[in-house]
């Protein structure tokens, strides 16, 4: 089947029920998207499907064929997406494993709500676990990215 990942069409030979996560990681070699739980509990596998944040570990690959998939590798060519810039400024990352998912979830949130309240941040990011405990800086970075985008307009 054909997958459109980060603007490129790829042919993958996968059983229909294989989760998109494993098609991306093991068949397309895109390892920025992470396995954390396999049951949409932790958000490490978050990617964008037609611009919306989804958990790729529970979406059968057949269900996403022909739709636009964006992974962390495709969020910006060089780490210059406002969320990534804010992440660097706020010095968010620790081990880094969950951060692709955190960043993809934050980018989807800001695309929909450019100026989210703390409650909206909490709701949108509640599905992304970080065991290092970077939450406070995640919140800080989302606020920074939000104000960056507002100033830019």
């Amino acid at each position, binding site marked *: 089947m054909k997958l459109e990942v980060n603007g490129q069409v790829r042919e993958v030979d996968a059983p229909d029920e294989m989760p998109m996560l494993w098609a991306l990681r093991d068949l397309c070699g895109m390892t920025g998207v992470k396995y954390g739980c396999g049951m949409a509990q*932790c958000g490490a596998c978050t990617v964008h499907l037609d611009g919306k944040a989804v958990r790729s570990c529970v979406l059968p690959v057949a269900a996403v064929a022909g739709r636009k998939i964006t992974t962390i590798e495709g969020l910006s060519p060089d780490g210059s997406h406002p969320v990534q810039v804010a*992440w*660097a400024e706020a010095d968010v*990352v620790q*081990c880094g494993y969950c951060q692709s998912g955190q960043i993809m979830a934050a980018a989807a949130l800001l695309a929909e709500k450019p100026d989210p309240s703390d409650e909206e941040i909490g709701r949108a990011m509640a599905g992304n676990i*970080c*065991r290092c405990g970077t939450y406070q800086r995640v919140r800080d970075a989302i606020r920074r990215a939000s104000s960056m985008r507002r100033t830019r307009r």
Partner: protein
Amino acid sequence: MTLSRREVLVSGAGLLIAFHVPRKGRAAQMDKKPSVNPNAFVRVGPDESVTVLLAHSEMGQGIWTSLAMLIAEELDCDWSKIRVEHAPAAPAYAHTAYGLQMTGGSTTTWSEFDRYRTVGAMAREMLVRAAAAHWKVRPRSLHTENSFVVYRTERLSYGQLAEAAQRLSPPVSVVLKPKRDWKLIGKPMRRLDTPEKITGKAQFGIDVQVPGMRTALVARSPVFGGKVRSFDASRARAVPGVEQVVQVPSGIAVVAANFWSAKLGRDALQIEWDLGPGAELDSGKLLASYRDLAKGPGTVAVAIGDADAALAGAARRLEAEYDVPYLAHATMEPLNCTVRLDRVRCEIWTGTQFHGVDQMAAAQIAGVPPQNVIIHTPFLGGGFGRRAVLDSHFVAEGVHVAKAAGVPVKVVWTREDDIRGGHYRPMYVHRVEVGVDEKGMPQAWRHTVAGQSILVGTLFEKFAVKDGVDAQSIEGAADSPYLDAVPARKIMLHSPRNQVPPQWWRSVGNSHTAFAMESMIDELAWAAGRDPLEFRSALLAGKPRLWLALKAAARSAGWGTPPPQGRARGLAVHDSFGSIVAEVAEVSVDARKRIRVHKVSCAVDCGQTVNPLGIEAQVQGAVVFGLSAALFGAVTLKEGRVEQSNFHDYRVLRIPEMPEVTVQILESDAKMGGIGEPATAPIAPAVANAVYALTRQRLRSLPLRLT
């Protein structure tokens, strides 16, 4: 610092410094100053790059940046030219205090403070001498700035000098900069690993791809200590993508083209287990048995004065029992290990905290000498102690699977494998009896701890277990600063054994002792009718560092002023890993009796700081880690089976539950301590003490649950 002998190793083009103290010299030096066992690396390239090799693993704690700062401080190089790599597993990278290559115990920064600075100073000195030779002037007439050696108006870059410097013999001794000249140490620096980690480029063990590699999942016994009796792999082999099914000591491995096929294959396995006595384990019964144990006398670890007599004669006696459950680490990156074997060597890619031990274990299984076991260390997706495994089980298993399969293999653990895989912070019970005088001050303290020893029966037993007492089981209680003020005290320990593999878990013994100590101190304060802060001040009279930290945290939390409506505050201070952390938690309880933590005010005295921005992150992170355990964490067993399996039933803190955590780093000239772990332990008692202040319910079991 004077060095007995150094070697310059040439690796490609440029300057690579390794200084190596030969065995004899090392032994002599160890006698004088056991913490000095210098070996380290920095590479200055003709392309101006400065590559720092880390003897320890970056697992989030920020040493990728802090150790680089130490070298850069002395090398006087352009910070933007720094690159960092994990060093391979080799004796040169042995821990300066432990003599074995490893990452843990919140030791990395303090244990490398001298070694990494010295390496930077040596490299600088060689570059200066190369420049002096070029200009035919005395080295003293030169100075360095930002990756250049400068002579009057002339400048040579480190890159230009790298090859000439490489040909020089290293200096016999170097003088390190005095503190007043530091430009980097103590300044907040952003992390060097951010660019890779925000773009998905950072490679973790689970991301490793090796040509011809297969992915394997292992079916392990559903109860601890069980063995395969028989198995039928015919259905597993029929799963598309499954290539082999092999038996290894830990279970049955399904080797497949990718993770998904391996998982479907494993699901299709039919295995008969010989479960053994582990099938009887029940955490509820275990807890009851620990409570019984703690009522009786254990092995005496500390006995000062006659605590039994003093208790019997005390004006008033308080008794309390505290208990904590088994806990999984639940690192975000599940365990994994990639192994490629051939006749002469064994190559391993894995996120480990325990290079020295893993290398030896792998060598034994692979049948090659340890130096032929090459360990590549990608980033670790969290460690918290889970990847410093005394029996090297996940590395050993990887080597077994690769050996049996005859192809390069990546063994991946699922989240369920991780949560159910044992290697937990053990369950403990503390029974504390305190005799107080008329003013409520403790005069007698009898404290009995029951729970598995982490170290008994391991390679490390001889270092840490003395007269039957594993010091780690009682650390933070036996040496509690509060007890110095108590004239009669006795600490006893029971170390029952069972099939559950115990493991170091961020803050180790302190994760339960701080809960017992700081809860009991709080109980004493309330019993005496005194303010918990003021009561502690009396007990900590001779402990200025603890008292200052506690006071600072209390001040920033607004202690003594009324909290917002419906909230209360609780405090705790704990000394561990050479650092002192005080925390004040502000909590409320909702209509469904759920505890909500709104604010945590922390004050830290960790001695000399290297990167305050990193310290803040570690303290915030440790508070989150401790809070997950305080509010939710418990692994329970029924008929030997772990009842939890994934993040839906092994709950951890999520962002809506994140309190606002403020971190004050106190000026201190104390000896440098650790920072990865010490802020973990005080949060549970700080929250429990706040809950008591709010509800007058004393919660003595973790996780904290109101009834």
